[in-house]
């Protein structure tokens, strides 16, 4: 039994994510920006795929949504295809949470050569090859396929457990992983660790491509958010993330002991709360906003 398995016990809790802001001002300023970024990444995923920043995009869509997308992509250089297979076969590659809604279909979007290669790999049950085609670095593939099926991001759990329950990092770009419950999703896969250099490079590619497409302001917001101190902790099936501007909680697999991750950050936002414990600070005299 792995250390992760020892940590987790059986519970049931509905899906939820609730946000509490440190002030109305912080909410008024930052919530629209975060929503804007969330929408941007959703909307630009296909554009990033056509530029091959993401070699392949995988979505779970209702049949009518897949049809609509297919129509939209008719004029583009991208191909759309269903990934058909038994649930068991799909589970060889995808986490159970991804396959949650069984009415939805799994759709591949990408250049023809990538889609064909991915379909071929899937049909041959070659998970390694499939994940490589979607752009996952080798280190992440290995960790992903060995990882535990859990709603806690495996890289996070693994990063923390490597250090026995609590881990402090000074990572910047990969801290986006902690904002994922708010919809900030920059990559098509889960990086193996918070210090995965290949994944950091992939995020830089995403950011630079979007800057080239004219989203300079948005990328400044993103970089600012990712430069803040942030803490993640999980206990009894509830994860709590604390940032200088808000805290939020959501459901995860239940852990018997508290697991914590701290990213120390290098900036603190103007509207960040004053507080006594990490990530809050009493004194705001540190370097402030980039954007």
């Amino acid at each position: 039994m792995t250390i992760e398995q020892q940590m987790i016990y059986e519970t049931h809790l509905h899906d939820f994510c609730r946000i509490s802001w440190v002030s109305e001002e912080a909410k008024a300023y930052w919530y629209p920006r975060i929503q804007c970024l969330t929408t941007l990444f959703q909307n630009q995923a296909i554009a990033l795929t056509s530029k091959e920043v993401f070699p392949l995009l995988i979505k779970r869509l209702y049949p009518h949504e897949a049809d609509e997308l297919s129509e939209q992509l008719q004029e583009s250089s991208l191909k759309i295809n269903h990934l058909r297979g038994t649930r068991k076969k799909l589970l060889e590659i995808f986490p159970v949470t991804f396959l949650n809604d069984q009415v939805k279909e799994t759709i591949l979007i990408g250049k023809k050569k990538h889609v064909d290669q991915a379909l071929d790999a899937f049909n041959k049950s070659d998970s390694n090859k499939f994940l490589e085609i979607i752009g996952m670095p080798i280190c992440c593939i290995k960790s992903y396929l060995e990882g535990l099926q859990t709603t806690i991001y495996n890289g996070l759990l693994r990063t923390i457990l490597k250090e026995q329950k609590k881990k402090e990092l000074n990572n910047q770009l990969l801290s986006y992983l902690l904002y994922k419950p708010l919809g900030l999703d920059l990559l098509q896969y889960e990086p193996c660790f918070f210090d995965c250099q290949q994944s950091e490079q992939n995020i830089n590619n995403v950011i630079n491509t979007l800057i080239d497409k004219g989203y300079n302001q948005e990328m400044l917001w993103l970089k600012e958010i990712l430069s803040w101190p942030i803490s993640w902790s999980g206990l009894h099936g509830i994860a709590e993330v604390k940032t200088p501007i808000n805290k939020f909680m959501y459901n995860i697999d239940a852990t018997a002991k508290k697991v914590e991750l701290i990213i120390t950050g290098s900036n603190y936002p103007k509207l960040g709360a004053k507080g006594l414990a990490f990530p809050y600070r009493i004194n705001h005299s540190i370097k402030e906003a980039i954007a």
Partner: protein
Amino acid sequence: MVLEVRPMGVKCNLSCKYCYQHKYRRVGKELTDYDLDIITGYIKKRDQPVDIFGGEPLLIPIHDLEKLFGLAHEMHGYSTIQTNGTLMNDNHIKLFKKYNVYVGLSCDGPNELNNMRFAGSIDKTLQATKKTLDAMHQLRKNGLDTYFQVQLTKINATGTRLNKLMQWFKELDDLGIKYCRIHVIDNNCLDSSLCLTEQEYIRAYSKLYELQKTLVNLHFDIFDDMEKMLQLKDDDVTCVFRGCDHYTTEAVMGINGNGEQHNCGAMDDEGVYFQKPDQKGYERAMMLYQTPYEYGGCRGCRFFLACKGHCPGNAIDNDWRNRSVFCRVWQELFSLIEEDLERKGITPVSRHPKRKEWEDILWSHWQRGVNLILEKDLN
């Protein structure tokens, strides 16, 4: 839910060593000024019963207090105030009478028993305590109902001092005081040596429970609430027994003199005034119900329906996802009350054959974001 109005934030004239609001003072939440228009505008908008709170609310000028009491009276016919009483004078008492203000006094007993409500020196503290108790007599003389908030500490609830505290409660009973809330010390107490041990809490609470049986007027709300909860009478019990949502603190909505809103002060160890999310949730109670006791949960506890893990502000390791750090104390008290109910021929919920069925009903409602009032909704 009451609207907790704190014109000067957490500013106070005393410096109680165990005060749960120190965290806010350390991040500068004491106010030197306030905007009465913002406060009154908010009171009108929220339309909830008003509790004038602090810090110490009598630090604000009497004409402003009158405006607040007047508005609350006009809207609801009454209001409450929580004060240490050391600044109270005849003019305040006139206002309380005129506007039907129910006065809560914070005091841990007479003389040296109250020394943790520190006024700068022991002499000044003793004088301040005398003023508080004089204020209580004045309130009684004017026919005003008052109640007490008492903190149990090493100073007033161990050894012979506990006997003195009990004697004082008897005196309050004789004076016709009806109600007293006894508190455990908050996790954030500046001096942990003031905190009672688990065994000391059990001893003190058990003795006070026995004392209540001999009193005519005075009730300790904790025992009344526990007795009610063991009979599923949860309509008007304290928030700690109702599966409090740490993010929304249903029992408290507060506003400071600068318009800043706040939740119950027992939460948020960082000293940050977190805002209420749009949705309520009962995830903590749901997970405690499923989490084994040895991990910090409540699985299998026969008192879960009555307790629900108690206050998240006093959770094990200061993590609201755990059950109360005082779990053993509450279990002991529930056991005592359970036995008394059974002696009276009442089957407490903890021994009831339908307990599991009721737990399932409550759980399924929590899943939908609804906190049942068991008394109404299960019958």
